[in-house]
């Protein structure tokens, strides 16, 4: 189904998961309970993973579920339950005026982005050598087009990111330590 972007099956599922993602996001934003909100966000992440697969980024879809939904959101839920927050007692938003203003700002942002998105995409941006639509054909399957740039052109970024992870871990441990 990768190259049949015009098929009905493809289109239907695309819209299905897209709309579910958007609706879930809206519900997520309006929940009073942090746990409920976190779970709805997980739902959004799942739908996004499905969209990634539909967009021919299967690996990304997989790690989205594994890392994002499976690890990061779990950490969130751990913290929420650790803090034992319970439901919010007071309505979160700064009154109705705040809601309306935020909605207005959101609409404005959306409008701007839409206007900008209508601009023509640049014809051909400079890309490193290994790119292109011949994703599946070469040896290594679908992972190779991601892995090869990762360990070749972006090796420096890769190493730096790993150092970042190390720092984050150490930092999180330090920050989370109880004083005294």
């Amino acid at each position: 189904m990768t190259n049949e972007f015009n098929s009905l099956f493809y289109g239907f599922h695309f819209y299905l998961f897209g709309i579910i993602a958007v609706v879930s996001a809206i519900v997520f934003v309006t929940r009073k309970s942090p746990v409920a909100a976190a779970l709805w966000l997980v739902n959004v992440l799942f739908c996004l993973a499905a969209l990634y697969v539909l967009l021919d980024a299967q690996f990304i879809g997989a790690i989205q579920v594994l890392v994002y939904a499976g690890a990061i959101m779990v950490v969130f839920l751990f913290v929420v339950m650790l803090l034992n927050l319970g439901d919010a007692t007071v309505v979160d938003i700064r009154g109705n005026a705040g809601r309306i203003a935020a909605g207005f700002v959101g609409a404005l942002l959306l409008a701007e982005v839409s206007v900008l998105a209508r601009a023509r995409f640049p014809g051909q941006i400079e890309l490193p050598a290994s790119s292109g639509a011949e994703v599946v054909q070469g040896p290594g399957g679908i992972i190779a087009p991601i892995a090869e740039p990762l360990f070749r052109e972006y090796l420096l970024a890769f190493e730096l990111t790993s150092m970042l992870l190390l720092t984050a871990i150490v930092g999180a441990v330090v920050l989370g330590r109880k004083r005294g």
Partner: protein
Amino acid sequence: MLAESLFFSAVLFTIGVVGVLTRRNAIIIFMCVELMLNAVNLTFVALSTLYGATGQVFVVFVMTVAAAEAAVGLAIIISIFRHRQSVNLEDINLLKG
């Protein structure tokens, strides 16, 4: 599918922004930020169908950094909670003055 993906991405991003502006619970704001990051990921992946796998490489980086950030951020929130007994944004105002 590119245009629709971008549209969805924009909508999700906007929802994330509205959430950041309206919510007062620090953790939920954090989660809204994660939503924004995901929307951006969707943009990257959608554009990678046009420009090649570099987009997906970048998504890997984003996710990694998001994970690191989530860890550190939540550690900070826990630390704040220990001092102020609240994660309400109104109470986190030591910079006020």
